[in-house]
């Protein structure tokens, strides 16, 4: 006595989709190419300044603070220093990167979030205008900055990520930013 088991597709009377062995193997191969778990990735915090896309390494951003975080003005500091914030028993500076990156100062009083950034033994808040995402990006998607990158940005950009045909995102080097700020730039 033999038992017959229904084959896939028979239960709903729909003929099963047919595929050649070659197609099946190729599809499997494609899937492997997309999910390459060995490829190193980097977490990026994506944001905008003057509507231009920038990113900082996620490893350097310890906290994202809301726009209503009180910032206290301190006199006798350059205009690029917004002030200080009082955060859980610590005082941290809050700076703007616009002047350092050659961007026009934002218009209006609407303030965006603050990224708490640490690099080279220094921690400071960095004011951004818009937080876009926190994203894991494969290293192969990050390209070396091209020669055509403006001289103003070049010292602070460690890589570019071509998001699409229209837009490229600049990955900023927090250590270079803080170093330049301390040297009186921005």
């Amino acid at each position: 006595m033999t038992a017959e088991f229904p084959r896939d597709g028979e239960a709903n009377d729909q003929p099963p989709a047919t595929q050649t062995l070659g197609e099946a193997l190729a599809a499997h191969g494609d899937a492997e190419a997309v999910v390459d778990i060995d490829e190193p990735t980097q977490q990026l915090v994506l944001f905008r300044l003057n509507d231009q896309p920038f990113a900082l390494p996620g490893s350097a951003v310890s906290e994202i603070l809301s726009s209503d975080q009180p910032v206290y003005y301190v006199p006798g500091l350059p205009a690029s220093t917004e002030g200080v914030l009082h955060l859980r028993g610590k005082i941290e500076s809050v700076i703007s990167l616009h002047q350092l990156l050659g961007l026009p100062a934002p218009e209006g009083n609407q303030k965006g979030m603050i990224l708490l950034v640490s690099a080279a033994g220094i921690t400071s808040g960095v004011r951004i205008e818009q937080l876009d995402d926190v994203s894991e990006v494969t290293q192969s998607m990050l390209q070396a900055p091209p020669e055509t990158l403006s001289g103003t940005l070049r010292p602070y950009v460690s890589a570019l990520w071509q998001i699409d045909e229209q837009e490229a995102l600049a990955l900023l080097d927090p250590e270079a930013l803080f170093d330049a700020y301390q040297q009186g730039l921005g």
Partner: protein
Amino acid sequence: MPLHRGHHEQAQVALVLFCVGPYRTALEARHVLAMTDHPTALRTANAQTLLYEGGDHETPPNRWLTLRDAQAASDNNSTWQLGVSGDITLQQLPANTLYPLPKLLLSRRFSTALCGLTFHQQQLVLLLDARKLHPSLSQAPCS
């Protein structure tokens, strides 16, 4: 050891609080020798001009704090007066609420006397190092 730690937690710093323009500011009380309503020393300076570029809105001082001249030789007892404004109060503030100026700002400050920050009555207070303050130019007493 617990006694020592407890003592550290309770440590207080005596500060003289005043205003420099619109900003609440403080000096360690041990550096303030006297306070007068009018300048009496040969050398004076408005705190506002020493701390930041005041622009066109310099606030005239209404109190004068007498400080020892840190730039003078150690055996010289010369003094000078710092012009300040607002209410002058003596406060004992907990040492653990006095914060150093954030590292990033140290090299960008207008005056190296600005050494720290604290909060008093929900207001930011600028902490000044009296030893870094001195009248850069000798001035006749203001009338």
